[in-house]
């Protein structure tokens, strides 16, 4: 029994078929508990009012936006080293999810920022680096779409993912430097995790778990779709020959 068994598409399809409903149901349960608890059974913050509840979408989405990229980085590495197609397809499947998570984090952040900071957007280091992450996702997906040969596409996007990870990290710290260098705007970024009270923290944990499970379920689902579409292409190619 080893992890690499699941690199076999058939084995992966069998196992993921069993696992997918569990992940989906658990994700739904966690999200319903977390969101309902968070939205309706916590008191309003004394300064932020009801807007504090955006935290239940904003923080988990932002976490998953970064973790999706990390997952793509790992699966890209596995593809480059061990040439398992499932791994490359999982990276491809995760990218649009990561893009949407980034978008959710940016939009909920804007909606939250408007009443709290009085502006939809500031060039704060965190916001800026998420915008850059968004651009990285766009480029990655565009490259997948542009290359016709699936193996070439997998190779090129994997290299882009590796190089992009280095540059994304570099940008993160460059942006930090850039803004602190111009004006001391650090008071804008609330350090949510450390400050937040238990009343908000517990539902938040459920939401985070829900987002993680949702992400896993979506990646499994999309990877299965990719494998199936790859099989259809193979069948069609074979019929054209025969």
């Amino acid at each position, binding site marked *: 029994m080893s992890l690499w068994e699941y690199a076999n598409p058939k084995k992966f399809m069998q196992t993921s078929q069993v696992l997918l409903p569990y992940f989906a149901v658990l994700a739904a349960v966690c999200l319903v508990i977390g969101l309902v608890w968070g939205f309706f059974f916590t008191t309003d913050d004394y300064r932020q009012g009801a807007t504090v509840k955006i935290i239940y979408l904003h923080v988990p989405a932002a976490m998953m936006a970064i973790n999706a990229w990390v997952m793509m980085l790992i699966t890209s590495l596995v593809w480059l080293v061990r040439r398992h197609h499932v791994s490359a397809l999982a990276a491809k499947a995760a990218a649009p999810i990561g893009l949407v998570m980034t978008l959710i984090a940016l939009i909920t952040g804007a909606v939250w920022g408007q009443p709290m900071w009085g502006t939809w957007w500031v060039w704060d280091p965190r916001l800026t680096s998420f915008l850059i992450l968004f651009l990285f996702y766009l*480029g990655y997906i565009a490259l997948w779409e542009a290359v016709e040969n699936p193996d070439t596409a997998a190779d090129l996007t994997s290299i882009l993912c590796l190089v992009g990870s280095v540059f994304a990290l570099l940008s993160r710290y460059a942006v930090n430097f850039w803004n602190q260098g111009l004006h001391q705007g650090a008071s804008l970024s609330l350090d949510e995790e450390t400050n937040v009270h238990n009343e908000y923290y517990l539902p938040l944990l459920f939401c985070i778990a829900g987002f993680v499970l949702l992400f896993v379920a979506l990646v499994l689902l999309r990877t299965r779709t990719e494998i199936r579409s790859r099989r259809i292409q193979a069948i069609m190619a074979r019929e054209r020959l025969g």
Partner: protein
Amino acid sequence: MIALLIRDLRQATRAGGGFGLALAFFLIVTVLVPFGVGPESAVLARIAPGVLWVGALLACLLSLDRIFALDFEDGSLDLLATAPIPMEAVVVIKALAHWLVTGVPLTLAAPALGVLLNLPQGGYGWLVLTLALGTPALSMIGTFGAALTVGLKRGGLLLSLLVLPLYVPTLIFGAEALTRGLASLDNATPLLMLAGITFGVIAILPFAAAAAIRINLR
């Protein structure tokens, strides 16, 4: 390798090779900015460092898709792949040639455009220094992007989409070093970071770019 460099330089400077196009683009961008933001010299002096850096970056971007495209089309890239020099060296030479025909002229022309934008006195040295330090990184990152998209039919737009996010750190440190130099602040940190990015990129990206070319030639 030197023969390859000379060949690339000769091709770039030949009529229709696109030499000077980047310079003309840089000039036009710089001329357009005052029309957009108004002619007040104080405003122009304030935004001059950023405009010059962004202009140079965009001008650099313009000629990237030519780095490998022509060689790929007429098959000389396949010959280079089977040549006794490693693909990594070819990539470095290509990036060097690109820098010599775009980065160096841009750096030398930037002070003249700085006059147009009313760049404060004392900024000219920093302008040339930051551009001289930063443009090699722009060429090298661009060469990597060109290597990724070399096999695509219409890779030009995709190339910009891939490369521009990668340019962010270089732009930030380059413009920051220039702005701080203008304000007579200590700009050693951004300058060192800029140099670090340039040398790091030259050390690492040839391998990634060469791998991408090998994949595209498969």
